[in-house]
């Protein structure tokens, strides 16, 4: 079965083109997936470097290293790079590589657009990062770009807005491509409810992106005209409304949070059954839970705004709706645990990262439930408690899922097994430092340390010093990740086609490494 559809070349010119133009002109989903993933890896270190500048300044009270304006610029850029430059491109890269192989299709439905979606990204980020070297520096009003503060920024703000437009265009094109692929390229006979959960979660994510990226584009365009062309959308003195910006932004921003985590749910739902050697518990309920989370994500946005002065009825609605999200999210966690229950588990690196995800994402989810309680949120809001919360769901959540996916599918991509010993070391070192980094943030946040400040009272000094040690430890341990990836690309023990003992799914039926073209003839098992 393992050599089924692959390897039967009908033309001689079917392999990758030679030279660097291969990467520029490629329309192959595997090449483009690789480009996305490598881009995300590079941006991960750029965004991480910014985080280390932030943590270095916060190591001690007093200002030692940077001007407060540059500090603000670092917090702003760190978020924009990590969200738009790391997590989203990495998920799109995984979608490119895996979705066609998981549904038995030969490629993405719109391969030329696929090339364009990727190649916009490096230029978008060149625009964004170049603002740091312009007069007045980069954006320093926070990644949310709240008006009117963001409108006070230097002229380089125009570059920031254009780069966000480019990233948005790239994301929307990528999403349309994924939707078109899933609806049109499935193996004959494969019903929607037979698709792997990674495909399902990406389908739902793609719809979220198509729905909300235009909203973000609208919001930043209004900022652009307010800043440069004299409009007053958000300028109170001109009859505008600064709170409206926040409503529009978070109508994008909250679904965006789920865009950053739903594909992770799909990855974890692939990995846990493989290493528990047992089918995913409650497949259908996982699909419905994902859809419920996506729906709820549109009606909870104002929980980011409990202190702006909403009417009581509004605060009540957003509190109850936000609490509701924990129900489908809980169902997912329970299903994963039930999948592990009475399995026959082994703990290779992908499984370690998946379990790390499960434990620490749950911690982040529980602090999210605390944040939903509006009266308490008014105390938590804009403190380090929030910083701890969203880093627990994004780092051991989204980032760990991407690392788990990398280790899980790397043998399929390269044909070689990665170095298991160094993979495990990477997991354990990362996990220890990650908790040293983020757990103390709960404490200082509750004790009253606001976020986005470059200097603080002495009462917060000890925990901040510890967090900074954790940050440097976590940052440098990611070099192990790079080492393992490149070692695996260069060579290693030959991977079998199935790679993992308990692996299920079409991607494991093609040879390792996956040939340049797979499923030119659709697989037969669903018809």
């Amino acid at each position: 079965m393992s050599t089924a559809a692959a390897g039967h070349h009908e033309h001689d010119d079917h392999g990758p083109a030679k030279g660097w133009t291969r990467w520029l002109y490629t329309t192959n989903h595997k090449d483009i997936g690789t480009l996305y993933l490598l881009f995300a890896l590079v941006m991960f270190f750029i965004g991480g470097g910014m985080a280390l500048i932030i943590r270095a300044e916060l190591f001690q009270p007093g200002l030692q290293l940077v001007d407060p304006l540059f500090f603000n610029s670092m917090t702003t850029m760190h978020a924009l790079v990590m969200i738009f430059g790391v997590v989203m491109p990495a998920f799109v890269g995984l979608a490119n590589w895996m979705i066609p192989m998981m549904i038995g299709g030969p490629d993405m439905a719109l391969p030329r657009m696929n090339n364009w979606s990727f190649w916009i990204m490096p230029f978008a980020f060149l625009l964004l990062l170049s603002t740091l070297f312009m007069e007045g520096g980069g954006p320093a009003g926070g990644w949310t770009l709240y008006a009117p503060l963001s409108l006070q920024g230097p002229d380089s703000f125009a570059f920031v807005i254009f780069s966000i437009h480019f990233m948005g265009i790239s994301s929307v094109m990528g999403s349309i491509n994924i939707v078109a692929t899933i609806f049109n390229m499935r193996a004959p006979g494969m019903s929607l409810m037979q698709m792997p959960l990674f495909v399902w979660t990406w389908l739902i994510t793609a719809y979220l992106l198509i729905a909300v990226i235009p909203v973000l584009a609208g919001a930043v365009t209004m900022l652009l005209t307010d800043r440069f062309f004299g409009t007053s959308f958000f300028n109170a003195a001109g009859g505008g409304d600064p709170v409206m910006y926040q409503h529009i932004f978070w109508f994008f921003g909250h679904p965006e949070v789920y865009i950053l985590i739903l594909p992770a749910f799909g990855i974890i739902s692939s990995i846990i059954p493989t290493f528990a050697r047992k089918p995913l518990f409650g497949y259908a309920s996982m699909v419905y839970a994902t859809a419920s989370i996506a729906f709820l994500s549109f009606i909870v946005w104002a929980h980011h705004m409990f202190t702006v002065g909403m009417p009581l009825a509004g605060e009540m609605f957003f509190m109850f709706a936000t609490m509701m999200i924990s129900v489908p999210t809980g169902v997912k966690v329970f299903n994963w645990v039930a999948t592990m229950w009475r399995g026959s588990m082994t703990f290779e690196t992908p499984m370690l990262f998946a379990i790390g995800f499960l434990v620490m994402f749950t911690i982040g989810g529980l602090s999210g439930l605390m944040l939903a309680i509006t009266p308490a949120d008014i105390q938590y809001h804009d403190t380090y408690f929030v910083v701890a919360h969203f880093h627990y769901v994004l780092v051991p959540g989204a980032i760990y899922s991407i690392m788990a996916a990398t280790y899980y599918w790397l043998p399929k991509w390269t044909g070689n097994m990665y170095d298991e010993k160094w993979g495990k070391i990477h997991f354990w070192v990362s996990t220890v430092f990650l908790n040293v980094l983020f757990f103390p943030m709960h404490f200082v946040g509750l004790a009253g340390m606001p976020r986005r400040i470059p200097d603080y009272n002495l009462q917060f000094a000890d925990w901040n010093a510890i967090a900074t040690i954790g940050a440097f430890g976590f940052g440098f341990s990611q070099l192990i990740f790079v080492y393992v990836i490149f070692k695996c690309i260069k060579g290693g023990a030959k991977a079998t086609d199935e790679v993992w003992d308990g692996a299920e799914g079409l991607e494991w039926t093609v040879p390792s490494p996956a040939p340049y073209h797979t499923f030119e003839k659709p697989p037969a098992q669903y018809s």
Partner: protein
Amino acid sequence: MPTLSRLSLVAILSLIGSAARADINMPVGVTPISKEVYGLHMLIFWICCAIGTVVFAVMFYSIFKHRKSKGAVAADFHESTVVEIIWTAVPLVILIAMAIPAAKTLIAMEDTSDAEVTIKVTGYQWKWHYEYLDSGINFFSNLDADHNAARQVDSGIDVSQFDNYLKEVDNPLVLPVGKKVRFLHTSADVIHSWWVPALAVKKDAIPGFINENWALIEEPGIYRGKCTELCGRDHGFMPVVVRALPEDEYNAWVAENAPVEEPVMTESTGAATATAVASADDDREWSMDELMAAGETVYNNQCASCHQVGGEGLAGAFPAITGSAIATGDHAAHIDIVYAGKPGSAMAAFASRLSNSDMAAVLTYQRNALGNSVGDTIQPSAIKALR
């Protein structure tokens, strides 16, 4: 895996063991609302701990028992509608139980009726302005000057000498104990947020909006907080300090500080001005030394955050005063930019924020310090003439 579980166990235990410690937990506070909020916080915290304990216990039991190396053979079950319904319904019930007390507290928090004292709190980059609507007292509250000197990049000053580093101001907000105080929040420039943890009061100060909030302080004391909405370069340096006094002491303080005359209203903000704008002193000729001495203080309090203590500004963001065409040019343009501000930029209008003599002093200081040496003075009478 054992290392991970032990780590999380240690983390959880240390959290439980020290939940009451002020340095790692929310303060209980000194208002009825803050105590309710603390109660809700601890309730939801323990619920989360309980849920976490159950989930992690099952997970780690499975991780230890159901591993291939111990000979576990995978079962085949993968579906159960009954189980799915149970673990949808049980959390729902917990949530409803949690939502009821939360909603009650929220309703109480939003009830600003029957307040005995009303204070308008206005955010500025980067200071607070307080106005007692009942008595007319009003003043700015800046970060303490010593702290401000210490917090400059590479100041060389050891910040550990300050007991309340970055949480000390020149003029604290004075409030009575035992009376319902209503706050009206607004802003003169960008969005700020006024937070005092011990009062469980946090509300955004938004230009063009007036938000309401209230507190009933039960114990005299000094309560410190911060701005919590990113508001630009010196967001971290605009603390809030509240001094809560027993009623008789508060009344004495009001009597002592209430302005004798009607507060002067200025055109630009319609608000009562910060300090007495006009003074009999305005009509006399001030000496260069007098103006320079006063001007340095005003400059460091009002201008240095953006234009920097040495006047060099920040390229692209905040123009330099040193060598500036305006600050070394004719009087009218120099006075105008400080008096009326520059719309669409961070440069505020200081007409309502500085007295005639303070404005004259800071203008003179800018012309003759910070690397400039024009050699002339701007007199308070020139500012007075504009009003």
